[in-house]
């Protein structure tokens, strides 16, 4: 009994402790909320903590000579923050904001309009029940009961007008502005809080900023934030290499932790490949402001750090000449329509210039091209142009033909067949061996022709391999190829990396295809015939390579067999100029005999002296080793063949290798002038006169005004 009594007493003590604590807390609350409530309220409404991210400016991109290609400029974005205003006041302010933006020609976010444009069936009177349910379930819009919104746009408008308390005093147009902005808020309601913010317009004009700050007392809760945004100089010639930036998409966001939903990210080219270097480190700021978004005091923050700067190996002068020459050649070829071989359909091309000693890409052009500026500006013209290039399925200007286009090499493949024959130990070919072209040859029940014999009735006779390269006699190479065998040819094509990505510092490079037994078996599950070897020997059949692979191949022919890894970014530096990264020359050595090298070099040199490209290089002061290629596309009845030319120069001490490709360019020799122009620019042997004469018409045609690459940064 006694024990129970003690227990009971002790429980009583515990109860007393609990009750006293509770009473104490209530007293304290009474003091805070009832006695000092007003005091705290004032402090509370005065101070609002805003915290936001500051996106770092991207690194700058220069060409080889330090000319600025991509830089940053200051822009102003508009945000809204919850400012504790009544609907009436908020609506009036938003209308004023819209009117200011409209009057200055600034664009702003229009989610409602876009939603309706994307979902036209919203207003379809024959809308099915499922559609109505879908419409109601759409979190992006509103939870509108079926009875409130039926089918027509008018009814939706009336509903929204009522929902947002837009008074009758406003006209239809005014009400629409208000509803648009209110919808923007509704859509982003999770961020539209005190201290939170939602973006309503990007990159508005200074006039708008000025007018807003004058009317601040009427337009509450508007925050203007400065931001550095990407800007490009006159970079159409280098668009595919440089790439462009844009808002990060939902899919990209998934793969890139550390990014926010409204971040800018590289979308293609160098901007994409070097995203991690260019991006910089975002800063953040926590400030104390009033409820209308005015900043009173900075609480804490971390400054943003600009991204690293890149210096490209591309020489913009060379790049420009390559592009202009390519485009000029394309339009010239079109004008030479003859309806037999030339159907006037030349429309696209690519050129790659590579330093044969280092692997630096000195120029890489792809035509047609686009202006990266179209992707970062939001004026009507840019948007129109952007859509035009994105959906141009014939010209495909967004496609970087230099790394993503695969072209049948045609005769430019012949040096490989020559090497395979010369290097085959079981065969006895050397520089002196004569191969007979007697016009026509039957092997394995297949008739091989010399093109000249079939077309003009004459033959090449017994010629050396080097002479074979010069004349590009198909029959000689059918014979060499069949003698060497497909395995040998394929081995050498592989040695030059023609079925591998070169490893250039650009995304989306594709690998070429070498015609061989393995490919045929794996792709078509078919047996290899000797006729296949015959076709492969003149660079036809499945053979198809990218211009960058061809450039690496041409460079390897030039530099004694170094298969280089080409690169575009030469140097990465931080803001202070210290070097973060410096590109290094990397290559794999291909082993082949001196004699073979000499045969190839002699053969290719005579191509520009007496051979297929001799007309183009008539009296050219520098010895150029080249090889033309005319690639049948298989649709020769009404489509011109592709023209390809590879070369390197000077022959004695090669410095650069060039590949030029023109789609439907008719003949390989038609593309050689592009390479010649590039050589002339590179070696400074440009005759001013010739340039003027050749280009004056072209320039008029293009109506392309030369502007400085980028305005000097203030």
């Amino acid at each position, binding site marked *: 009994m006694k024990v129970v009594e003690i227990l009971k007493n002790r429980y009583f003590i515990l109860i007393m402790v609990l009750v006293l604590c509770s009473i104490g807390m209530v007293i304290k609350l009474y003091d805070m909320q009832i006695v000092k409530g007003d*005091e705290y309220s004032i402090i509370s409404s005065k101070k609002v903590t805003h915290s936001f991210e500051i996106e770092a400016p991207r690194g700058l991109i220069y060409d080889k000579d330090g000319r600025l290609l991509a830089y940053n400029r200051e822009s102003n974005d508009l945000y809204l923050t919850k400012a504790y205003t009544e609907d009436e006041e908020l609506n009036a302010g938003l209308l004023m904001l819209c009117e200011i933006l409209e009057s200055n020609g600034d664009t702003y976010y229009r989610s409602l309009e876009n939603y309706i444009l994307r979902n036209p069936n919203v207003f379809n009177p024959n809308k099915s029940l499922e559609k109505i349910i879908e419409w109601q379930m759409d979190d992006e819009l509103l939870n509108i009961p079926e009875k409130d919104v039926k089918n027509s746009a008018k009814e939706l408008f009336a509903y929204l007008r009522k929902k947002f308390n837009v008074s009758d005093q406003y006209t239809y147009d005014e009400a629409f502005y208000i509803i648009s902005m209110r919808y923007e808020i509704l859509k982003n309601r999770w961020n539209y809080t005190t201290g939170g913010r939602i973006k309503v317009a990007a990159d508005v004009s200074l006039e708008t900023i000025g007018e807003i700050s004058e009317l601040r007392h009427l337009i509450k809760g508007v925050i203007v934030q400065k931001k550095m945004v990407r800007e490009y100089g006159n970079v159409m010639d280098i668009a595919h290499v440089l790439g462009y930036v844009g808002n990060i998409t939902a899919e990209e966001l998934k793969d890139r932790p550390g990014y926010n939903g409204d971040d800018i990210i590289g979308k293609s080219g160098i901007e994409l490949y070097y995203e991690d270097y260019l991006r910089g480190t975002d800063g953040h700021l926590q400030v104390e402001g009033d409820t209308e978004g005015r900043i009173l005091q900075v609480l804490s923050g971390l400054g943003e750090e600009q991204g690293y700067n890149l210096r490209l190996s591309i020489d913009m002068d060379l790049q420009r000449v390559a592009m202009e020459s390519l485009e000029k050649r394309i339009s010239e070829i079109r004008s030479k329509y003859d309806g037999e071989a030339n159907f006037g359909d030349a429309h696209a091309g690519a050129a790659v210039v590579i330093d044969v000693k280092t692997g630096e890409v000195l120029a890489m052009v792809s035509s047609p091209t686009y202006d990266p500026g179209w992707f970062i500006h939001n004026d009507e013209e840019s948007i129109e142009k952007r859509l035009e290039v994105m959906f141009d399925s014939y010209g495909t200007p967004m496609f970087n033909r230099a790394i993503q286009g695969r072209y049948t090499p045609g005769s430019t493949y012949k040096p490989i067949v020559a090497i395979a024959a010369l290097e085959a130990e079981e065969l006895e070919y050397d520089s002196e061996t004569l191969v007979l072209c007697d016009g026509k040859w039957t092997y394995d029940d297949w008739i091989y022709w010399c093109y000249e014999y079939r077309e003009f009735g004459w033959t090449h006779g017994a010629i050396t391999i080097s002479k074979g390269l010069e004349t590009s006699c198909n029959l000689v190479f059918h014979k060499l190829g069949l003698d060497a065998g497909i395995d040998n040819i394929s081995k050498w094509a592989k040695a030059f990396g023609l079925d591998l990505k070169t490893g250039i510092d650009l995304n989306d490079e594709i690998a070429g295809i070498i015609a061989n037994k393995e490919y045929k078996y794996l792709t078509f599950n078919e047996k290899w015939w000797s006729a296949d070897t015959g076709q492969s020997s003149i660079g036809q059949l499945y053979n198809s390579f990218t211009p960058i692979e061809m450039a690496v191949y041409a460079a390897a022919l030039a530099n004694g067999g170094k298969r280089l890894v080409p690169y575009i970014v030469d140097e990465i530096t931080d803001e202070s100029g210290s070097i973060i990264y410096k590109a290094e020359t990397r290559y794999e050595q291909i082993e082949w005999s001196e004699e073979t090298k000499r045969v190839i070099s002699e053969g290719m040199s005579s191509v520009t002296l007496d051979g297929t490209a001799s007309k183009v290089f008539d009296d050219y002061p520098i010895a150029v080793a080249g090889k033309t290629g005319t690639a049948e596309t298989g649709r020769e009845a009404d489509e011109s063949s592709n023209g390809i030319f590879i070369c390197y120069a000077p022959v004695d001490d090669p410095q650069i290798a060039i590949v030029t490709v023109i789609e439907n360019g008719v003949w390989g020799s038609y593309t050689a002038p592009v390479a010649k122009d590039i050589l002339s620019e590179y070696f400074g042997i440009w005759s001013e006169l010739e340039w003027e004469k050749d280009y004056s018409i072209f320039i008029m045609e293009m109506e392309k005004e030369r502007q400085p690459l980028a305005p000097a940064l203030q």
Partner: protein
Amino acid sequence: MFNKISNVSILAKFDFVLFILVGTITALGFVVLRSATASMNTGASIIRTQIISIILGAVICIVLALLDYQYFKYLGYIFYGLTLLLLIYVLFFGYGREVEGIGSNSWISISGFMFQPSEPAKIAYMMTVPALLVKLKDDFRISTLVLSILAAVIPIVLILLQSDLGTGTVFIVGLLAVVFIYGIKYRYLLIGGVFAVGAAALAWFYLLDDYQINRIKALINPMQDVEGIAYQTAKARIAIGSGKFSGSGLFEGLQSQQNGAIPVKESDFIYSVIGEELGFLGAVAVILLMTLILLWCLRIAMKTQDKYGAFMVTGLTSMLAFHFIENVGMNIGLLPVTGIPLPFISAGGSAMLMYFAAIGIIMSVSASSRSS
């Protein structure tokens, strides 16, 4: 005993008063949590976790309420051993420190699901220590005493080693309450008190890290230093104060709806959201509800004739009481800031399950005292 229980219908034994009181405060808390997380981009996932925790918690609560708590006497040892292992594991492999060397390292992750072993440890502790004390009371032996002391002290030491002062205190308060009800002589309590003060002084100078000391110091004048911890508590007090009599209304609190104003507003400082959005009325209602729940639990402890049940209920109730008093106390600036959440209201999976488990056990004791 089993016969007796099975003769009485389940419904008659079920402590509806306690269940409804807990249900009410949980519902209120859930509504407030939705408002507190409205401005957070993690809000939806917090709410999802909370819904799952409440449902799971209610199931655990009902199951435990229908079980005979005498089983816990023995099952408790196994459970206790398991949680002890987890506490040792977390000491080496746990994470959760926001900054290296600061804050507690008390979380572990099991296939992506984060939980704090100290939560189940609270339940295991209160199943085991009372059982040993009952044994000691029935048959006093030195060996039992030593065992009891070890069982009581080891988890506390392990938790303090995680630098989790708040949780450590929860155990100490629970233990003190049980020992108090055990009937320990007041002079022993006095001697113990003197030792405790000495230990606290020692801890202040040697054991606590700067982070913990700062949190206690911030109490002294939270309005002065705007940055850091004091700034956080100041924001919480501004929020509560500005709620005045009836509050700003849910989803309308100026401070509550900001991100970065009230710290951890979905958990540790959710009471500030209640204060601002529901005002004095809401804040007092929470105190009233919690006090009623705790008093009802103490009533169960008093009514039961079984010492094990009485000790266990007292211990668990005291732990809950400490959670409640400490959390509200730190929100209104009366007590130092620790990471102790507000029972049934703060977001958090493992803590939520622990509260419901505790209520379940208490209901089980209530049921058996009704049936006897």
